[in-house]
């Protein structure tokens, strides 16, 4: 069974595949350039000590982004 979640809702250790990136402009382009494209494997590794931002593993490296930004990314769990 396939479940769609928002990246910002995932807890550390949860994995999935990028489904879609919503929104426009600089942020979306940056995410694409950094390898956040539909179909990529993602795993949430950590949440910062104060609860934001988060650290995800994608294309074999660590990427950090704010939860606000992670809201634009939907994930197939």
């Amino acid at each position: 069974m396939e479940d769609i979640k928002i990246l910002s809702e995932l807890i550390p250790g949860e994995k999935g595949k990028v489904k879609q990136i919503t929104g426009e402009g600089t942020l979306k382009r940056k995410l694409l350039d950094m390898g956040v494209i539909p179909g990529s494997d993602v795993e949430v590794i950590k949440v910062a000590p104060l609860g934001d931002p988060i650290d995800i593993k994608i294309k074999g490296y660590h990427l950090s982004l704010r939860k606000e930004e992670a809201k634009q990314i939907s994930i197939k769990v």
Partner: protein
Amino acid sequence: MVNKKNLTVALAGNPNCGKSTIFNNLTGSRQHVGNYPGVTVEKKEGNVAYNGYDFTVVDLPGTYSLSAYSEDEAVARDYIVKEKPDVVVHIVDASNIERNLYLYTQLAELDVPIVLAMNMSDIVEKKGNSIDYDELSRLLGKPIVKTVGNKNKGMEDLLETVLKLYEGRIKIEKIKIDYGEEIAQELKKIAKLLSKGKQSLNEYPVKWIAIKLLENDSSAIDVIKKLSNEEEILDQIEKSRHHLKLHFEDDPEVIIADRRYGFISGACTQSVRITVEERHDRSDQIDKIILNRFLGLPIFAAVMYGIFKFTFTFSEPVVGWFELLFEWMGGAVASVVPEGLIQSFLVDGVIGGVGGVLGFFPLVLFMFFSIAFFEDSGYMARAAFVMDKIMSKFGLHGKSFLPMMISTNGCAVPGIMATRTLDSKKDRLITMMVTPFMICGAKLPIFALFIGAFFPSEQGANMMFLMYVLSILLAFSSAWILKKFVFKGETAHFVMELPPYRIPTLKGLLLKMWERGWLYVKKAGTIILLISIIIWAGFTFPQMDAQEGVSEESVASMQMEQSYAGRIGKFIEPAVKPLGLDWRGGVALISGVAAKEVVVSTLGTIYSLGEVDAEEAGSLKEALIKDASWSPLKALSFLMFCLIYLPCFVAMAVFYRESGSSWKWTSFLVFWTTVMAWVASFVIYQGGTLLGIGG
């Protein structure tokens, strides 16, 4: 003698791929730093002689892509297209190959000769993976060289390959990224319109512009703005994007990025063998501690304290040597040149000015060394990660913390320079703008003097604490206001790589320290020297005639009163009157622009006390207490003004340079701080008087 043949090589690559290390290995100390015209991005260039050739190596800014959204990327792209380096070396972190090669797909489409340097190839092997470099080279159509930058391996091989390619002894193949039939069709339509009548595309290949247009890239749209059939092209882009959106149910830029990654993924599947999928490497282990929920913040605080300590405490002896040197120089000049205007000009104006520039130099060097250490080790990104939650609430970035901290009890000059760690222009400007609000070391003597004079000891500590709290509140609220009103609509995101931890090389650290430190002397130095001479003249002219029967101290006091600076003080008296101050406060504030601690010595001169040392101002304290024109409320108003008003001119000169020589932002800083200071002092003095407190 045979003239050496010249050859230009540009180094391109992602941030953290080890590009700087390779640049340093190749060029050693034969490098210099400048600026790309019109932008603040640094241009690093160096030379190396090899096999009868003189290679000019250009270290392009580290970028993940070549889109138009960041200054760095635009600079890298423009350099490659317009300056046409003979060979582009793309340095790839082989241990993170897929994301690194994304840049390759775009470099390749610029149709330039490329050599791929697979850096950190030792890490790949250590992890138990292997790369078939011959196969990868065949798939990507470019020669590949294995390098290990931090062990200085593969450099000769790299130069040799570059030379071979340049001399045509090896061939490269054009690669074609398969964007699929749908996109290819649209690209063809756009390309056809672009090629109409052989129009100039600023030297960009037609296909490149066509792809960038489909991606909705703003700089590509700028390129076609001058074309005769601009309307027609824009129309076609609109149609094409619309058509593709319907077809793929997603934006064309997503599909294009997907196809690029697909191309890389295809090449890697055939050439990279991952034997063990390592779940947690060493970096992950370190992060378990460094980013731990409970340890993260204490470790951050300890690192920041360490940088601060290192910058200010460890540099103390060196700063002392510099002071001694300039004192000695002043003394030497004074003993040769007879007393009078020329001596005063040389000693106080020129040597004092040069001393003012170089006095900060050790601080700047020590700070950049410690920052470079934490940057190169990979910690800086973590520091931003830990602090971002708090900082972002005020429109700042996680990395804004460091400059503000360096300024607190330290100095805004290295503080403003430390904003170089911030990538987005907006984040940098806001941070630079609020950094001077922090209480720097030079403001402390003013506070100590006035708090000591007007607030009894038990209140004193509270007052001091209040000042610190106020400075922090001011900085954060200013940041918030700037974000809300001045930079509204501009977004800066936090999408940032957390690079693997690495052990920095001493050579790399020293080069980085020197290069940034030297930039300070070169760029801010001349302005600082010029202004210090102007300030000297303001307090020296017009000269007063010698008077008999008057003590030396009184002459100095009278000289100050009737100098240009004194006259300005009197001129602005109406403006400082509502703050409870008279012309003496005005002159002191004006002199504080030279350096904040000068406020104290200026008051000393006004009160005819001769030379007053900023740190030991006992007699001045007495004089202030006795002077009926001061009161605790007026003192507080004065302190408030000193806390907020414009930074010293050294900090302003650095701000001007670091803001990209922007008069707009520098005047804004002056205006913003002065207005805020005036309003705050006004509210305190008038409010206090109304309420009858301390009047």
